[in-house]
């Protein structure tokens, strides 16, 4: 049969864009709860007091700015997608990829500040490791979407749910990181 293909929204991958985007919410839910657990564990294992003075709040505030900027950028990207401007959205992705990379650098640097054996330091660092892992995977996903948009724009057009899901995921991580900031740096 001539029409066989392995593409999305093909015969053997029949989910509609609505299904792909809707079902992805369940995937995000899992990861959201995982981070929520970590945010709670800051109180269960990190002690009830304020963050230790050794915590570099300046670094945290800098990372917060990056996160907030990235949220603005993501919202703009999605606006462009909604408007059908796929080329513009792809262009935004290149910039967006900087956010996870900078955040990885910042997080890894922040590990040098508190002893990991201390109650607060332990849960802070472990939560950070998990963020780094997710940042790295999301950076790859953004890169993938960017390259697909450049190298195979026709295909990318047929699979726009991918960019939607990648940016949704980034939004979730960014919001969670704001939660992280409030939970660990401010509270």
């Amino acid at each position, binding site marked *: 049969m001539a029409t066989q293909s392995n593409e999305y929204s093909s*015969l053997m991958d029949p989910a509609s864009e609505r299904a792909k985007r809707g079902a992805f919410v369940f995937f995000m839910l899992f990861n959201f709860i995982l981070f929520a657990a970590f945010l709670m564990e800051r109180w269960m294992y990190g002690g009830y007091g304020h963050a230790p003075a050794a915590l570099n709040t300046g670094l945290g505030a800098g990372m917060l700015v990056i996160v907030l900027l990235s949220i603005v950028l993501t919202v703009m990207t999605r606006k462009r997608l909604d408007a059908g401007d796929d080329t513009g959205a792809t262009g935004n992705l290149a910039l967006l990829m900087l956010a996870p990379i900078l955040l990885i650098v910042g997080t890894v640097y922040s590990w040098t500040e508190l002893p990991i054996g201390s109650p607060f330091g332990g849960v802070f660092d472990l939560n950070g490791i*998990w963020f780094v892992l997710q940042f790295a995977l999301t950076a790859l996903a953004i890169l993938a979407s960017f390259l697909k948009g450049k190298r195979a724009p026709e295909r990318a057009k047929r699979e726009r749910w991918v960019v939607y899901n990648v940016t949704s995921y980034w939004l979730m991580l960014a919001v969670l990181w704001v939660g992280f900031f409030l939970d660990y740096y401010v509270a």
Partner: protein
Amino acid sequence: MATAELQAQGRGDVAEKSSFHIGMVFPMVRATLWGFIGYYAAAWITAAIMGQVLFDPAPVLFGYLGGLTGWVMGSGIWEGWIRRGFGGAEAPVLTGVDRYFRFSPDSKATATRYVVFNIISFFFAGMAAMAIRVELLTPDSTSWWMSEIHYNMTFGIHGLMMLLSVVSSVIVAGAGYYLLPLMLGVRNVVFPKLLGLSWWLVPPAVVATFMSPLVGGFQTGWWGYPPLAQNSGTGIILYGLAAATLLTSSVLGAINIIGTMVYMRARGMSLGRVPIFIWGLCAAAILLTIYAPATYTGVMMDMSDLVLGTHFYTGATGHPVGYMDQFWWLFHPEVYVFVLPAFAVWLEILSAASSRPLFGRNWAIAGLLGVVLVAAFVGVHHYFTAVSPARFPIFMTLTETVSVPTGFVYLSALGTMWGGRLRINAAVLLVLMGMINFLVGGLTGIFNADVPADLQLHNTYWVVGHFHYTMLGTVIFTWLAALYWWFPKVTGRMINEFWGKFHAWWFFIFFNCTFFPFFIMGIEGMNRRVAVYMPYLQPINDFSSISSFLLGAGFLIPLANLFFSWRNGKKAPENPWRAKTLEWHTASPTPYKVFPEGMEPVVVHRFDDYSEGSPDPVAWDKTGAGESR
């Protein structure tokens, strides 16, 4: 709408035939090779950098991650998914036998691979069980057979593997991922590639667990409780990573289950018409999605106490009971992940086998979802002996309320059979036996949940009896039933009924001879997880051990039955059980495309109406002819 001609085409043969040749297994071989290379490369490099040896925690940790990556990359995930994801060449389309041996987005191939690998895991974990029973033939620790240290490793591996690579996936994945799209009337699940990936995560976790003794094993059993976890062998790293990998694999499936059920049902399939088996899968999937995360963090924190030097659960500032809370937060609900799909299989089979509508269908669904509601709030019943009595009454009451929704499911099953003429074949027989076993398992659960009783019974063989009735006695019986029932669907052939029934009785008799004595041993004071016991318990242990050898050897019967029936069993009629659900409306064995291009099923009536002259629940229509979903 649909013409008679169109109706005949739903079963049209759209199979793409291709025959097996040995080159097709190349991806599996490559994956294995890259897996081992990945392990050793990462472990050696880590050891060299940190000045450690290969048995130290960090090299094992990075070794595992390297091995997992190597294996997955070897599977063909690059050509099949990642390359195209980055805008590279389009993935090859595999419609023939080769899709079974490499990364493939075909849900049927994924499910089939699950069945085969479940059988392999069941075999090896079963051999570990036999080793345990040999050790328990004598009350002392028999040094010719294994040391106490090896005994501890053995039951830990047995438990972890049976739970997370057998019981958790035999029905959900082996049967579930196959039937999910078929029963809903679509050609594939919502994220076929994620589902494909889920299988490829299983083998490395299983291999790592079985190999864990090579790096010192682990002594904690399947719990991984601190602080023993941090003090008894580097193998615990492989335990933790394997558990996390298997959970990830389950969650990838869970997302597909919920997503497919919510967004991809055939036209006309309202939620009220969704088959009960899918509801069972959905209940399990909700549990996994919501409750797995906290346990996931618990496993990571447990490992980080060992590798990174944190003190969540260890040392002066650690809270070991915190691990128990996180661990049981999922792993109590996990028992419903095992058993709710099994319940749902009962209802599916009993309704078709007695040609009667499901009794109290909505109550049964409410039962499945009701269990989901209470599930997470009962975990403390696993460690009443470790917490303050303030928690007793709450967790005791909540646990015992679980019997109420479970009761709905039972009543639905009984009401469906009641007064009907049940056609008893091997699958139905296994379901009935599973129901009897679950009665024992569930009722003994109530004793466990009762604090005064549990303070005596905790950590005795009573508890071991309880969970073998619920898992071996219920889930594995139902697994075999499901394999027999849907065998004609998958292979187009019938299993041998005589040997099926023969083995069902064999299984039932020796299962009960092996495990009923556990309750007596428990009450008589036999501890679980200890290689030695009091000499007066030897006769009953010997009886149990010998029964268990017969029980174990008996599994050769269904293995042979499945194999020979697959090769040259009787050709199956189109719908051997006269079941009405959608999967039987397509050709068997299921063609690659499930149903012909350009057509789609439309659900026009409920599936469990067996009354005289009731309309066919499925009509075929041209794709796009109806209103869009």
